[in-house]
């Protein structure tokens, strides 16, 4: 296996960008990620992005994003209709083949033009679920209901996750929701989507994230302390939430085992938990000890959830803290599908 590292990371997220279209939002973030890496545009071997055409409201809408890349001379390029964490996985595979040494990975999405909670219903089983139109929040609330009922968590524990996310987010310039609310404050707020409160649910966000990957010596030239990807694994479960044990994330557990999460200390973990109960399920599945690991120092997806780039941003947030020397080894997680159906686990480490 080749040594592949994240050598730069940039992101931008706001509650709503009423001015710029997606391409105009992508440009500055790509330029920043490229500039940080020092890799010249013409030297990028592979470009891979993640987005969702249904957010933009048109088929193949993602192609417009390539204008911001400047795909001339022609570039080797790919795209996933899912979170760009999986675009990073594809780019990592491309580098492992030895055909390229560097990759530019980006994710983008505006959640504000359409009704995101409703748009995500389109990913559901078209025969049994979609005709009923359960929203993204309805699906998550069902998992929260199952978890609380099984005594897998209490409402107060959900509130503690929400409070900590908001507090950590105060240090994050890209956070959309930040504050000093305590768990007590949150528990006193009304339940809006039984059993979830608004603070348990991610904020609607428009945003972009980008990362440059490089291998071996190219990585060492690009970054003073590359965040090496020691392992990256993803697993998926059955789509139907009725056949799964919603109180556990078996695919996260399996991916974490395959990725060797437990093979070393975990200084930080950035988890793509879009709802507070998901964080509790993921911490358990990853085998993390909250006493020893800083969970979501960025505030996580409860602070900013630019759908389609939030998972990639988790990898970026871990990488950045390794490069800065704040951490030595960390875990990043990304999720896709209803109720944590599919999960990606990435272990990163600095020299």
């Amino acid at each position, binding site marked *: 296996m080749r040594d592949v590292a994240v050598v730069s990371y940039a992101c931008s997220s706001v509650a709503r960008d009423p001015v710029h279209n997606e391409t105009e939002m992508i*440009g500055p973030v790509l330029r920043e990620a490229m500039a940080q890496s020092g890799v010249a545009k013409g030297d990028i071997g592979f470009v891979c992005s993640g987005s969702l055409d*249904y957010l933009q409201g048109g088929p193949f809408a993602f192609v417009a994003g390539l204008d911001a890349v400047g795909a001339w001379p022609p570039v080797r390029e790919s795209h996933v209709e899912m979170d760009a964490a999986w675009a990073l996985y594809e780019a990592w595979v491309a580098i492992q083949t030895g055909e390229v040494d560097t990759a530019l990975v980006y994710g983008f999405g505006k959640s504000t033009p359409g009704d995101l909670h409703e748009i995500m219903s389109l990913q559901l089983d078209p025969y049994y679920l979609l005709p*009923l139109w359960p929203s993204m929040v309805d699906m998550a609330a069902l998992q929260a209901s199952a978890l609380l009922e099984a005594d897998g968590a209490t409402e107060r524990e959900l509130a503690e996750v929400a409070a900590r996310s908001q507090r950590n987010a105060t240090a994050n310039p890209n956070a959309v929701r930040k504050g000093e609310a305590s768990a007590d404050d949150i528990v006193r707020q009304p339940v809006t989507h*039984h059993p979830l409160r608004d603070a348990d649910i991610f904020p609607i966000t428009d945003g972009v994230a980008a990362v440059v990957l490089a291998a071996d010596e190219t990585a060492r030239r690009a970054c003073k302390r590359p965040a090496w990807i020691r392992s990256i694994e993803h697993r998926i479960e059955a789509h139907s939430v009725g*056949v799964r044990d919603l109180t556990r994330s078996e695919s996260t557990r399996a991916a974490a085992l395959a990725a060797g999460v437990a093979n070393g200390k975990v200084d930080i973990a950035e988890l793509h938990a879009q709802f507070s109960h998901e964080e509790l399920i993921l911490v358990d599945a990853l085998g993390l000890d909250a006493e020893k690991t800083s969970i979501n120092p960025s505030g996580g997806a409860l602070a900013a959830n630019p759908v389609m780039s939030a998972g990639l941003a988790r990898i970026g947030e871990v990488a950045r803290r390794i490069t800065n020397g704040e951490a030595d080894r960390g875990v990043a997680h990304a999720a896709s599908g209803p109720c944590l159906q599919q999960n990606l686990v990435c272990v990163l480490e600095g020299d």
Partner: protein
Amino acid sequence: MTDVFTAHHVIEYPGGYTRSVGPVIGRFLTGLRDGKLLAVRLADGRVLVPPTEYDPTTSADIQPEGDHWIEVGPRGTVQAFTWVDEPRAGKHPLQKPFAFALIRPDGADTAMLHMVDCGSADAIRVGSRVAPRWRSEREGFITDIEAWMPLGDGEEPQPAPLHVPAEDEQPVTGITVPIRLEYTLNAGVATTRYLRGLGEGKIIGGRAPSSDEVYAASRGTDPKSGEPTSIEVEVRDTGVITTFCVVNVPGLSELAPEIPYVSAQILLDGANNTFFGLIRGCEVDDVHMGMRVKAHWADELIADHTAIKWFEPTGERDAPYEHYKDYL
């Protein structure tokens, strides 16, 4: 500039999106039409409802015929629920507050997601006993169960009203699902600039400072370099047809003329990309590559794509192939 154009945008399958369901889902839906909840017993003994084409654990095919098909319910138990305070108009089958729930029918080992019509969130809890309220006219669709209802102690479930088969009725093979999504899109800075220009009778393009290339109707970026096309450049409303298509399919757009008509890519004078437009003012058979054309503007200009109604031949000599060969 913060005043960008926005537009209301709908994507929809009018009349609904039709899907064939295959024999396994088809058999379950046929069961619903008959007022029954069908399930399949998997190899490990677990009873799966609703049935899927593959065993969710082993991926083995599930056969549409066989004695692994059994009836479950009608009573069920709520495993998890959430409350919908404000139903979505045109989407939720129930247009009053209701619960979404995972319901495990008696005899099954898995749950199915459906609605519970119980009046208020206080009237449902995990563990509630429920039974289907069947629609009287059923078609083989998940809403043949209108909703599940709380079952009081000792209460008998309402039986499904008898389904009288239509003459020559067949097992369910397909469903039609209405799909509609609405958006408020914003055009962004560059496209707003271009549309404003149309409203003033101009075709606005842009170029990036590091390049000589001008992109008519630029979306804000030089597609070769990725740099912003920050320099506004007006291009001429005359140009040369590079490639074109004779359209013989009627009704593609409200703006489309009667068939046959020509749609073309036009290399506008001053631009380094081609521009899409209709060609009128000549016979369809006369249109050719290299033909010089000029925009025919609407009498009343609005800042949108209707400002240019079509392009028509100028009568000038054709442009040489050299002029447009790099734009094909």
